[in-house]
């Protein structure tokens, strides 16, 4: 039985799929898929091998695409993926998550949908539309987007989301009701006496350790950790080259190990600091940080990595992957120690995710 490793790359012009084996040394590129639609997020279900991709076309609106044969053939649906008449229509699907057979889709303008038939039809979980703070939510630079979507592994009723720029919200009832969870995170863009509001923070990404209540958050204004499911957040930005960045990725088995790609700041071009690429890693929950640079470009690296474009795989040693807004994909098969470029010249990369399956899940060959 052979292990097959896939890196799912969502771009402004379709989905690309990179494939390797457990060695993760040689990679093959497939795509573009999804009729070159702008795709924000592509994920894989390791139980079935199904790939889902969420995005939206300027012509045809939002949809979730699906491939049950690792990218060879795709279908699309937006059945039920709509707000009620009179409400601003959904522009695009921004985030996907799968847990226990249910597929969740976060959209712009911010809202959450659930599919219980593998992406064929969707039901609106409308608690976010009814939240009393909603009229005061302001969109971030990319719109009022629900970009981060975390479903608890043990209790799928527990959901955390990140909305730019409304902040982090938590539901304990599967998305029917929500509470803001932003205590301790700064809003530097607010007046001096309002820098720690209940909501309205510019969260860039939220990720969760699989087997604990540990959350991490890269914010426009700082890097944070929470050990109580987001009720309180503590700054862990000391030691980083910048408090500004977009993505974060937790190690698949060690909640103290986190990967980041800080940028040089929000008003300095949003490039790699000093134009030298580095993935920053902590092994102690953010107390200390190390720059991982081996194999990454150390001059003229004027790219950024967007909020969903950094991921780990589930192998031992864990692989780490990121895609740039200039169309390159870099991979590490040794937990970030060394890096190789596994794709280049792709369209602007929105997200990178991994899918690891054994041959018997899909049969052999693609």
């Amino acid at each position, binding site marked *: 039985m052979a292990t097959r490793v896939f890196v799912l790359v969502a771009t402004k012009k379709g989905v690309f799929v990179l494939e390797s084996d457990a060695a993760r040394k040689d990679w093959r590129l497939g795509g573009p898929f999804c*009729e070159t639609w702008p795709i924000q997020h592509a994920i894989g279900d390791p139980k079935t091998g199904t790939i889902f991709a969420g995005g939206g076309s300027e*012509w*045809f*609106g939002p949809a979730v695409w699906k491939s049950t044969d690792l990218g060879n053939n795709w279908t*699309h649906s*937006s059945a039920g993926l*709509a707000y009620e008449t009179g409400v601003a*229509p959904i522009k695009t699907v921004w985030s996907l998550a799968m847990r226990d057979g249910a597929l969740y889709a976060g959209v712009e303008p911010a809202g959450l949908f659930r599919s219980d038939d593998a992406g064929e039809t969707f039901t609106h979980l409308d608690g976010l539309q009814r939240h009393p703070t909603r009229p005061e939510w302001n969109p971030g630079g990319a719109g009022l987007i629900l970009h981060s979507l975390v479903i608890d592994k043990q209790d799928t009723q527990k959901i955390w989301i990140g909305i730019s720029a409304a902040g982090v919200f938590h539901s304990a009832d599967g998305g029917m009701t929500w509470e803001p969870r932003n205590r301790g995170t700064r809003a530097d863009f607010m007046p001096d006496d309002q820098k720690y509001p209940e909501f309205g923070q510019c969260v860039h990404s939220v990720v969760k350790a699989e087997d604990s209540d540990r959350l991490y958050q890269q914010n426009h204004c700082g890097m944070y950790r929470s050990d109580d499911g987001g009720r309180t957040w503590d700054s862990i930005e000391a030691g980083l080259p910048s408090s500004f960045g977009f993505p974060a990725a937790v190690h698949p088995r060690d909640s103290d190990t986190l990967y980041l790609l800080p940028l040089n700041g929000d008003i300095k071009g949003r490039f790699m600091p000093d134009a030298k690429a580095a993935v920053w890693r902590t092994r102690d929950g953010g107390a200390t940080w190390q720059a991982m640079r081996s194999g990454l470009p150390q001059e003229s690296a004027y790219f950024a990595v967007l909020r969903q474009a950094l991921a780990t795989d589930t192998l031992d040693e864990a692989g780490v992957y990121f895609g740039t807004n200039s169309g390159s994909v870099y991979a590490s098969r040794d937990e970030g120690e060394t890096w190789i470029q596994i794709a280049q010249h792709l369209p602007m990369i929105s997200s990178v995710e991994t899918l690891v399956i054994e041959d018997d899940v899909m049969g052999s060959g693609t």
Partner: protein
Amino acid sequence: MTSHDGIVDVRLPSLLLRLFPDAEPRLQLQAGSVAEVVDALDARWPGMGDRIRDSSPAIRRHINVFVDGRRAKLDTRLAPGTDVYILTAISGG
């Protein structure tokens, strides 16, 4: 749709046909308005309605529907024999 509605001649854009491989580029439908054309297309190829019309409801911003040579809206009425062109606008980057 009423019993007075006539048959109209509908043409679909190639980009839309790529999303619905079984669809035909040109077909005749019974419809009294553009909205009824969209409904009829959706009935024949489920999901096609969402690609043409948003939840406002309105024709999507970068889709143009021309009726007898003029841009139409969902509530535009159609006389029997009308030519209905559904087109993708210049868009993208």
